[in-house]
């Protein structure tokens, strides 16, 4: 049964590795005499663009045929509070990994917030169904090992479009694998029930996440002249801004902040 646990890990990791294996074709560099075009090419940092575009098209096809319709049904069938509950449970299940990354990033306030969220929402919040912690002053944030690597000084590397997983880069792809490896739910338990729960979690996460972007993505695809380039730009900008914010976060723990604050 050790083998089933390993296979679960490998299955989740598989898509990431597949992504790396598919990279072959290279983008054509612009005429070196055109300085601005060269600067633009380097800033995009997408040397594998032809391959990335093929994977983007495949992902988009899968999305149109499977994921988006599922998300539409999901949104239509489940009322708002139910979907919020699902989201809360998924976020709570993810918080051990978020906590580990907060700690590895050396961010005591963020780690403290995540720890309190995990404790409060798992208990008072009925196994994560209700997000009580946000109201108590412990707001949610995301964290992953790609961010941790960035905090440690790793560069993002060239842009990558991963099969099924979407926009990424070598740093974030490695981070994704590490996050799966450090997720206790990857390793805890055994047997087909546990495996089924693991797949259910992954599937629900995909459908729930997609259901929150139905309108935005429909609009993006309708309005962008080149949706691939627009997604690439949004991903890079958002990732860089998130990482910049984490690096700049030098708050101590909540307790330290209370001690430091003048009494009201």
């Amino acid at each position, binding site marked *: 049964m050790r083998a089933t646990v390993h296979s679960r890990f490998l299955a989740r990791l598989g898509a990431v590795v597949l992504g790396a294996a598919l990279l072959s074709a290279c983008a054509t560099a612009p005429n070196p005499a055109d300085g601005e075009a060269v600067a633009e090419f380097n800033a995009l940092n997408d040397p594998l663009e032809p391959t990335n575009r093929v994977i983007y098209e495949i992902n988009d096809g899968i999305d149109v045929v499977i994921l988006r319709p599922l998300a539409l049904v999901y949104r239509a069938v489940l009322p708002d509070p139910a979907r919020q509950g699902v989201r809360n449970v998924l976020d709570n299940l993810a918080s051990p990994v978020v906590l580990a990354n907060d700690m590895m990033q050396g961010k005591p306030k963020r780690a403290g917030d995540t720890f309190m969220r995990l404790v409060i929402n798992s208990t008072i919040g009925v196994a994560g169904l209700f997000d009580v912690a946000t109201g108590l002053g412990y707001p949610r944030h995301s964290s992953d090992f790609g961010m941790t690597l960035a905090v440690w000084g790793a560069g993002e590397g060239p842009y990558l479009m991963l099969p099924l997983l979407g926009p990424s880069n070598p740093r974030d792809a490695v981070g994704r694998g590490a996050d799966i490896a450090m997720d206790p739910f990857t390793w805890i338990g055994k047997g087909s029930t546990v495996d089924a729960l693991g797949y259910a979690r992954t599937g629900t996460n995909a459908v729930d996440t997609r259901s929150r972007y139905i309108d935005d*993505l429909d609009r993006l695809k309708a309005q962008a002249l080149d949706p691939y380039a627009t997604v690439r730009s949004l991903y890079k900008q*958002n990732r860089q801004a998130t990482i910049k914010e984490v690096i700049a976060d030098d708050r101590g723990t909540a307790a330290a902040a209370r001690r430091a604050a003048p009494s009201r």
Partner: protein
Amino acid sequence: MTTRRVFLSAGAALFAGAMPAAPARAADPDSAAAFVDSMLRELLAVANGGQPVTAKREALARIVEARVDLDAVARFCLGRFWRMATPKQQADYSALFRRVLIRNISEKVGEYEGVTYSLGRAVARGEDIAVSTVVTRPGNAPNKVDWVVEADGAPKVIDVIAEGTSLRLTQRSDYASYLSRNGNDVQALIDALRRQAAAG
């Protein structure tokens, strides 16, 4: 999922453009914040008002016209190709850009219903002033949206940065990619924008 964060931005970016015509003076952070505040009030008053949808769209378009430096945004989004374009192409492009942007913003008036915001800090960002807000759509997590206001002359919005993604940078990247795949021909972009404008 990473895509979740990325597309939050796309969501908030819908707010892309409204800015009011406030008193003409070099803007300091306080007046830039007041400018953004009054613009958002105006915008939400229209979104939450009782007019029919078409009237709302027209009102929203007027707000965008008044509050956004549409010509400056258009020029920025064309990047280095602006100088390559003929005067006629520049004029055609600017006119189409205005039409498409205003339409994209105003046709989503329904989505702004029930939206709330809180005004944050205003800080200098290069030559401009960035006014930060937290915008909440009902049933969604709050989004951080920064409004970049020109500091010289009458305040006007020149960029909206939603969850770290700049609307005009994203748009420029879209156009640049389209141009590079169409022989760097500005006319090809103008034709594509004309098709977009006609499609709506």
